[in-house]
């Protein structure tokens, strides 16, 4: 860790328009962890994850479930006395771990997000049933039954679309996305 950039700097570079190393300004006050509604389910609380990043413990951070359990509720962010955008940090860690293909085994988050994005890139709109097969087998049996029950009930109440909605200008829409990411990667 002497001649390469630190993990904290690497992560800071992924934060939108962040200047310098905001994570270094963390005073470890624990306001974020105290606010976080999911902290009890995380391997490390938001405060701990920042401490681990600053200490350069990359493996431990990427192997944790913390950022996959973040609900993006921004409650920590509006309360941090140092104005650290903790929610955005969690997003950045998700992206980082997807790019590096390195994440904790058995998590549904990564599969689900990739399936969701693929679906929208193809059709331009979100269509729930297309999504189901990609993640449903990673749920345990009880969770799977819950999901199927809910989908069936939504369908009966006329609340699930029966055919995928597509936007009209799908060809130019795809070309537009092609200017951002090579389609090979997502199709």
């Amino acid at each position, binding site marked *: 860790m002497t001649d390469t950039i630190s993990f904290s700097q690497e992560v800071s570079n992924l934060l*939108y*328009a962040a200047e310098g190393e905001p994570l270094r300004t963390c005073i470890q006050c624990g306001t974020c962890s105290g606010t976080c*509604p*999911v902290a*009890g*389910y995380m391997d490390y609380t938001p405060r701990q994850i920042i401490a681990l990043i600053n200490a350069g413990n990359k493996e431990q951070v990427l192997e944790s*479930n913390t950022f*996959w*359990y973040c*609900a*993006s*509720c*921004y*409650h920590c*962010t*509006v309360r941090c006395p140092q104005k650290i*955008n903790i*929610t955005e940090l969690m*997003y950045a860690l998700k*992206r980082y771990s*997807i790019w590096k293909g390195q994440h904790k085994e058995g*998590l*549904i*988050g990564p599969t*689900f*997000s990739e399936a*969701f*994005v693929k679906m*929208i890139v193809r059709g*331009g*709109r*979100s*269509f*729930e049933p297309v999504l189901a097969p990609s*993640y449903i087998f990673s*749920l345990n049996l009880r969770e799977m039954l*819950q*999901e199927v*029950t*809910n989908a069936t*009930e*939504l369908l009966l*109440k*006329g*609340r*699930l*679309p029966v055919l995928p*909605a597509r*936007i*009209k*200008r799908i060809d*130019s*829409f795809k*070309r*537009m*996305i*092609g*200017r*951002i*990411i090579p389609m090979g990667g997502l199709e």
Partner: protein
Amino acid sequence: MKEYAYFPGCSLEKMAVSYHLSALETTKKLGIKLKELEDWNCCGATTYFYIDELLAYTLCARNLAIAEKTGLDVVAPCSACYKNMYFTAAHLKKDADLAEHVNFALEEDNLQYNGNVNIKHLIEVFAQDVSAEEIKSKVTRPLEGIRVAPYYGCQIVRPQKEKEDVEQPQFFEGILSAIGATPVNYPLKMRCCGGSLIISSRTAALAMVRNLLQSAVDSQATVIATACPMCQVNLECYQQQVNQEFGTNFSFPVLYFTQLIGLAFGIPPKKLGIGKEFVSIAPSLLRAGQSKD
């Protein structure tokens, strides 16, 4: 007549069709026209940001560019769409580099975004653009005695935009009072319902839903009012699973704020999508909406 460009978002097409219907009915009564954006695309909720930030901004910017051509302010009824559009617009305004990148992609769809769109959440239209007096003047069946828990959730108020109150806002309560209902003190009104975790981290999400339901019961509310399709589905449709998981016995109605306004305006329940709930609403609610004519 006020007019807005309306971005329904994917969930309003089916999952949250009652929100869509009641939004259109109630705004119409107030002389507001919601004109659906032509050929809009999904804003991606939070998922795009997990994968690729630039893609996320581009998808939102496409909708913004389409809206800009209409010259109208954009209204989004979904809190996630609202937050995404609002902050995409804000970032594009500040960051010329990002705007150039995004516009390069939009060219493929013959679009361009110049940074001139205002974005509002549907509830802001009722709270800011329409006065409480105007709302009151349309009430024919005040929801007297109906105790409502105003659920703000996350993304209407967070992240903070300027200097607005992000800890104890009162605008939702204001709307409920205007239609004659009693907004209860709902201590968890700003807490997250865990919607984005319901697939990926189910136990955590169900616990969050349980806490919100319990808090509503404790505050002796009759119904929870929401302003977001994801919150509504999460709070209403997973009650059975919450009960299984925690041995509770919840059967608590959750309606869109526009459905409550609609009842107070005397709009027939069916036109407000009432009847599509998993948990039927209390008869007292319907009666309150119908007793006075």
